């Protein structure tokens, strides 16, 4: 390591091959109890449908499995190890009480089709969380069904389309700012809307004049992220909403950046008609290496008839039930009711915080981003001087003069014991460094981060090649992604 850092040291780290490389006939990690019913002859029952061979499925013992996955886990970075400065990902602490309550028997083992009489616990959880999310967002109703943010976007746009159709004209397009996350245009296309790009102005915000010019009765909605992907609050949000509503359009808000708003302002209050939330961002449910998420969609009253089926209602006798009688519903977006396990976790998070905790969380999130902005201003180029909320975007403009790009700086950051920030996004900032610390970072951790970033900037000046060759301290160095894409090897195969 070129520069020592108090944050991380090198350590012996266990190797581990593929589980198939450990497999050997006769080893077992399982044992079933004896049958209390008569044995059956599978061949007799299934005939030609009987499977004889499970091919190369592994055979290993329990300790090998424990070591296999434990060793592999030590190759990962994680929130439990340190900060993830990833922009718009909101990598906050995943509280352990969430995990404990999700495992309580009746909650963990409830079957989605069990009678309503013994589902009151689950229904109560869905209803309580729904009400609290409605209050937090300032909207009127919500569906918990979508499995993730992108799924929520799709559901939201389906409701937008159904709304317009009910008014006699489904309309043709969705306006999307050029700073938007890739799921936004991908989703619009899936719902058969054309995508029209909306340029940002010099402050990185929606260009009001452009919006006014592009808004017409062919536009179903504007998909907005607020604060936007630069971490900047759209101060003209009122004008934006007015322009849309004047021509009968709807304002869709991507709720990825809610961590800057909870308890301080509500999207429903500033003109949003439909929005999705990311429980795995704002509401602390764990990322788990890439999922599961949950993407509930909150709406204003006008869209209520179009909610996916079923909806939780309270019956006359006070008990809770699912209502399937929803003639104008957009239908189902998935089987069952949504990622219920994530509802449990999100609710536990809100309960642990209460109104004061949520507000304090948001304040700390914004304070932290601004602290880092102050710490790195002058070292890295800041393309937009507009006030920062919960995330800040720098660019690699200065370092580019030495041939070093954002991805290289990010790889070098790994040697300092951090996970990289978001590189090369948003697209409107070439060579972007998008940083969102979240409220979960202490001053100590952030100071280490700022020190690391400053140290790298020095290295870029003194020895850019060292940065270009980073990371130097990981078990694998930069991987050949070109070969992986040209000749994809997507599974293990036994040696022939």
């Amino acid at each position, binding site marked *: 390591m070129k520069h020592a850092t108090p944050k991380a040291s090198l350590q012996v780290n266990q190797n*581990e091959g*593929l589980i198939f490389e450990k*497999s050997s006939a006769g080893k077992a*990690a399982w044992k*079933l109890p004896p049958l*209390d019913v008569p044995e059956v002859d599978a061949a007799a*029952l299934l005939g*030609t449908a009987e*499977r004889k061979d499970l091919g190369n499925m592994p055979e290993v013992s*329990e300790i090998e499995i424990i070591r296999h*996955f434990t060793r592999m886990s030590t*190759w990962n*970075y994680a929130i439990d190890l340190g900060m993830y400065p990833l922009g718009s990902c909101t*990598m*906050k602490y995943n509280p352990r009480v969430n995990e404990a309550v999700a495992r309580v028997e*009746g*909650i963990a*083992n409830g079957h*989605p*089709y069990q009678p309503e009489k013994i*589902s*009151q*616990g689950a229904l109560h959880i869905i209803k309580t969380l729904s009400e609290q999310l409605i209050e937090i967002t300032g909207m009127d109703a919500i569906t918990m069904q979508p*499995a993730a943010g992108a799924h929520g*976007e*799709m559901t939201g746009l389906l409701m937008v389309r159904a709304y317009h159709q009910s008014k006699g004209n489904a309309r043709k397009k969705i306006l999307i700012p050029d700073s938007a996350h*890739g*799921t936004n245009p*991908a989703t*619009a*296309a899936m719902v058969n809307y054309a995508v029209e790009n909306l340029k940002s102005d010099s402050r990185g915000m929606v260009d009001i004049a452009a919006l006014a010019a592009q808004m017409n009765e062919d536009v179903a909605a504007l998909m907005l992220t607020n604060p936007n992907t630069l971490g900047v609050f759209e101060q003209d*949000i009122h004008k934006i909403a007015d322009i849309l509503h004047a021509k009968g359009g709807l304002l869709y808000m991507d709720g990825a950046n809610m961590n800057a708003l909870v308890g301080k*302002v509500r999207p429903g209050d*500033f003109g949003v008609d439909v929005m999705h939330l990311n429980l795995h961002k704002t509401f602390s449910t764990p990322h788990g290496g*890439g*999922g599961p998420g949950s993407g509930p969609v909150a709406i204003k009253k006008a869209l209520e008839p179009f909610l996916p089926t079923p909806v939780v209602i309270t019956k006359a006798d006070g008990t809770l039930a699912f209502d399937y009688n929803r003639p104008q519903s957009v239908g*189902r977006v998935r089987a*069952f009711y949504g*990622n*219920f396990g994530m509802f449990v976790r999100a609710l536990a998070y809100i309960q*642990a915080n*209460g109104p004061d*905790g949520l507000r*304090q969380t948001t304040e*700390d999130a914004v*304070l932290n981003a601004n*602290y880092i902005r102050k710490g790195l201003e002058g070292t890295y180029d800041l393309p937009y001087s507009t006030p920062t909320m919960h995330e800040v975007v720098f660019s690699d403009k200065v370092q580019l003069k030495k041939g070093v790009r954002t991805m290289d700086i990010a790889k070098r950051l790994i040697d300092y014991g951090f996970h990289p920030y978001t590189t090369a996004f948003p697209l409107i900032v070439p060579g972007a460094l998008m940083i969102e610390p979240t409220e*979960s970072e202490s001053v100590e*951790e952030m100071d280490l981060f700022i020190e690391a970033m400053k140290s790298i900037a020095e290295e870029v000046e003194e020895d850019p090649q060292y940065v270009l060759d980073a*990371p130097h301290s990981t078990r694998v*160095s930069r*991987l*050949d*992604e070109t070969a*992986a*894409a040209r000749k*994809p*090897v*997507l*599974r293990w195969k036994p040696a022939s």
Partner: protein
Amino acid sequence: MRYLPKSPADREAMLKAIGLRSVDDLFAPIPAEYRLTRDLNIPRQMAESEIVDFFRQRSRENGEGYTSFLGAGAYAHYRPVIIDSLISRGEFLTAYTPYQAEISQGTLQSIFEFQTMICELTGMEVANASMYDGSTAAAEAVMMAVRLTGRRSVVVARSLHPEYREVLATYATHQGMPLSVAGFNDDGRLNLKELEKAITPETACVLVQSPNFFGTIEDVAAVAEIAHRHGAMLVVSIAEAVSLGIVEPPREADVIAMEAQSFGVPLGFGGPYCGVIATREKYVRQMPGRLVGQTVDKQGRRGFVLTLATREQHIRREKATSNICTNQALVALMVNIFMTVYGKVGLKELAKQNLAKTAYAAAQFAKHGKILFSGAPRFNEFVVQTSEDPGAINSRLLGHKMVGGLPLKKFYPELGNAALWCCTELTTRSAIDTAAGLIAESERSMRSSSVASSKEEDVEEVAR
């Protein structure tokens, strides 16, 4: 607040460093008219013990301790304890998506193993890193077939899970994909004549589930022959993954859309679950969802990366194969560990136990009620027709802390008083005998009270 690692002194110092007087200054960009001046109207902050109490109470109100005969797309199997031991490790639980491969090899290698094992079990050449669930996997597999064939319409088996069909309808509506439905025979299988009639030169694919919603194993080869003869693709949905231990996978399929929940994912009142799409190598560029590939680093060491990312939303944007941005990574890890624990021999034994329990139950119930669809092999579910409304029988079962089979009237009204029952390795003989006994009683009382039994009984509201 105990999750926030800051003291008031810290905050003071930070504000000073930034050059601001108070935290309110940070929120100045929000127009004053919108800034909240009140607390959110949610309950006060709770202590950890209070949170635990809240959920324990909800658990008691949620059928804690009940024995269930429900299946229908969500299955109660034993979850080896090491699954939670391992996935609870912070390095798995709190890790991000493995975009930075050098510090995500744990996640990436485990996904590579997952992809491999799914291929082995399904007989396909390539599998993705998981989709949201079986229902959306089926819808996305259908859209894949539409893209690959350039045709727009879809023939769906009526024996496909009704909620999967609803999801497909939602996805299809806006993509201009006409759906037609082909019914099932007396043996529960897809009616091949109806299938032939429904297929047109515009059919992109046929979508069938096997074992199907009734637990019946379809004649996939016959369905494939018809589909392929018309230039359409065959998409097979698998909802009960454990079936792959003893039932031949649908090797004639072009795409398999699976639900892997049975492999170690808790029932959890419907989610999160674990969908997967598996297909032939030649279709891989049209497959949605994340893919992990093997490669080498600069020193030639083996490593794993997310690959073929150009199919995905963050690059293709509106031309992406899907908008999906997640894979169910943590749930897929549960599935991975489950498949590893049981392995080549265990998965077969597990499936055989499911087969045995179900065969026993069907035989017992057959003495009193009518078992439908007996003309074809089944895995771990079967349909029983009773004289009495299954809802009433289930009410009585609830008194024994048992949940009976899913009444089917809502989905298949023509089947009358039919219910779908599922037995897994966890179902005990005594539970089966008790349930059979209650059905016997029901049949006896229906016979004896004949016309008089049309009096309105207080039928418990059941879920469906």
